[in-house]
């Protein structure tokens, strides 16, 4: 059962990623990506990392993707395509993949409603996770925080409005 679930979820991840890459409509692409991230979260859960799965849903699917959508909406309000909106093919893939995802999630919950028995041979508790992150890989976390800081510095510099200078200087 677990094996079947694993391959189903893997197939969903691949399919949604490919669809995300090939869509012309950015909103559709982002929505497919959300599906891919959900599928990934379920995979994490099956592999014994519930905390990671939760973060995947909260951070990536929840926060970042919503941010993406907002940015897209801000810059380029989507125009509803009247010709295709009613067709079945238009709805088929999202509905099917979403349904499969829901089914998988339901199956996982049904198999272990209290999250007591471990589905995988290894079960990473949030405590273990924190240990790994802030003991073994503390340095890595620090470096990542630095990278983010300097990404912000760089973005600030590149995006900042400077006083207009003498433009003749510039080649």
């Amino acid at each position: 059962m677990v094996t079947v679930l694993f391959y189903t979820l893997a197939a969903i991840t691949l399919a949604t990623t490919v669809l995300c890459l090939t869509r012309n409509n950015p909103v559709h692409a982002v929505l497919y990506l959300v599906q891919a991230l959900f599928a990934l979260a379920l995979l994490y859960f099956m592999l014994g990392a519930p905390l990671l799965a939760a973060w995947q849903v909260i951070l990536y699917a929840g926060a970042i993707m919503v941010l993406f959508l907002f940015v897209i909406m801000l810059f380029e309000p989507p125009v509803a395509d009247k010709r295709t909106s009613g067709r079945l093919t238009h709805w088929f893939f999202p509905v099917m993949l979403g349904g499969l995802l829901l089914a998988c999630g339901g199956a996982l919950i049904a198999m272990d409603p209290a999250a007591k028995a471990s589905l995988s041979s290894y079960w990473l508790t949030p405590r273990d996770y924190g240990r790994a992150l802030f003991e073994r890989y503390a340095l890595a976390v620090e470096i990542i925080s630095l990278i983010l800081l300097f990404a912000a510095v760089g973005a600030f510099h590149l995006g900042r409005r400077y006083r207009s200078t003498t433009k003749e200087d510039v080649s």
Partner: protein
Amino acid sequence: MTGDMLLALLPLLVLFIGSVSVLFVPERQALVYGVVCALLAAVLAWWPWLSVASDTPLVSSGFFARGCLTLWALLGAATCLLSERYRASRQFAAPEFAALVLFCVFGMSVLSASTSLVSLFLGLEAMTLAFYVLIAFDRGNTTGAEAGLKYLLPGFLASALLAFGIALVYAATGTFVLSDTVALTVAGASMHTIALLGWTLILAAIAFKASLAPFHLWTPDVYQGAPAPVAGLLASGSKGAVFALLLASVPLALIAPLRPLLAVLAALSMIVGTFAALPQTNLKRMLAYSSVVHMGYMVLAVLTGHQVGFEAGMFYLVSYGAATVAAFGLVASLSGPSGEPQNYAALEGLAARSPWRAALLTMLLLSLAGFPPLAGFMGKFVLFSAALDAGYVWLVVLALFSSLVSCYYYLRPVMRLFRSGQTAADHGPANGGERLVLGLCGIILVIAGIYPGPILRMIAAIVP
């Protein structure tokens, strides 16, 4: 994290603290502050009672790591010194610039010192991120922004390849520790094919960072668009850090199936770089293709797979780095309000206008071409003989051929220098920092060419 570990990582900490604190330093003093921080890190790396070797996680604190950190810190200091002219005349936010350069040095140091795939990835990303911004730093220059984008997008692809490769290697070997992953792959891990696939992906990412053909196409555009000091740091430091990693901690040549791949990358880089450099009329683009060729030579050092070859490779890096930094530094020092003198035509008659800089540029190009008695010759000599010992005769023949042809494209700008041109000088005299950096690089090239013994011994002492 014990106190010993913190002490062992002190140079890195200095770079980190310096890169953050420089943001609060006034515009005029920021570059100098950056230089001081970089030099302080370099000195602390060798301060006797601070250089305790501790079993630090993720990054090593051994002699090799310290030596590399010193090199990158010196390069960073040189970059800051060479940028003074830009700060004065362009839209250059000096504090941000110095901070990014220091952070870049931090990333290179983490990369070359990394003992784990995690720190490898993070170091590479830190360095690359700083470069994305540094390349596009001159906001008045639209080609700079374009160049930044051209580094950014392929860089994302390379990062993705690297991350995927790391995941596969981890899946196959079950560890992030570099020495273990290599050893397990060599020993034939349970998922040998997966491990090899992972290494190939990592190799591709590294080939992008080191601009090996066919992953090199970004190089000329980026060098051309980036401010010259940044291009110098990119050409010497980023590639140097990648190769320092390959020479010290990831001996890819030990994994037998990867050797032909490396050999093909080396051969392609030499051939493509050489031919593409021939018709160039832009100094920075020519240097870009020349760096592709030189990185092809460096792969020879990786391929040797033994101590002597690695030492030769490090020596070559030093000689190449000094020449490259000085060449881009010269371009920076010759730039005026109308931009950098990138085209050969703009260099015409330089020998009459500023004889010292013309002589130095000649020397640098001759060293890159491998003329005795300069460092480039000695570097090629030790490198090629090490590769010959390792049995890569055809690659050495190819390398000799390419360095023969290279004389053509290196000497072309030199000839223009001494032609009496009518171009008016719009650059001022070299300032103190530029003189210091250029002079030091020139001295290093001469000394390493005439009397390489001490440098070779120092390298032999730190290469693990």
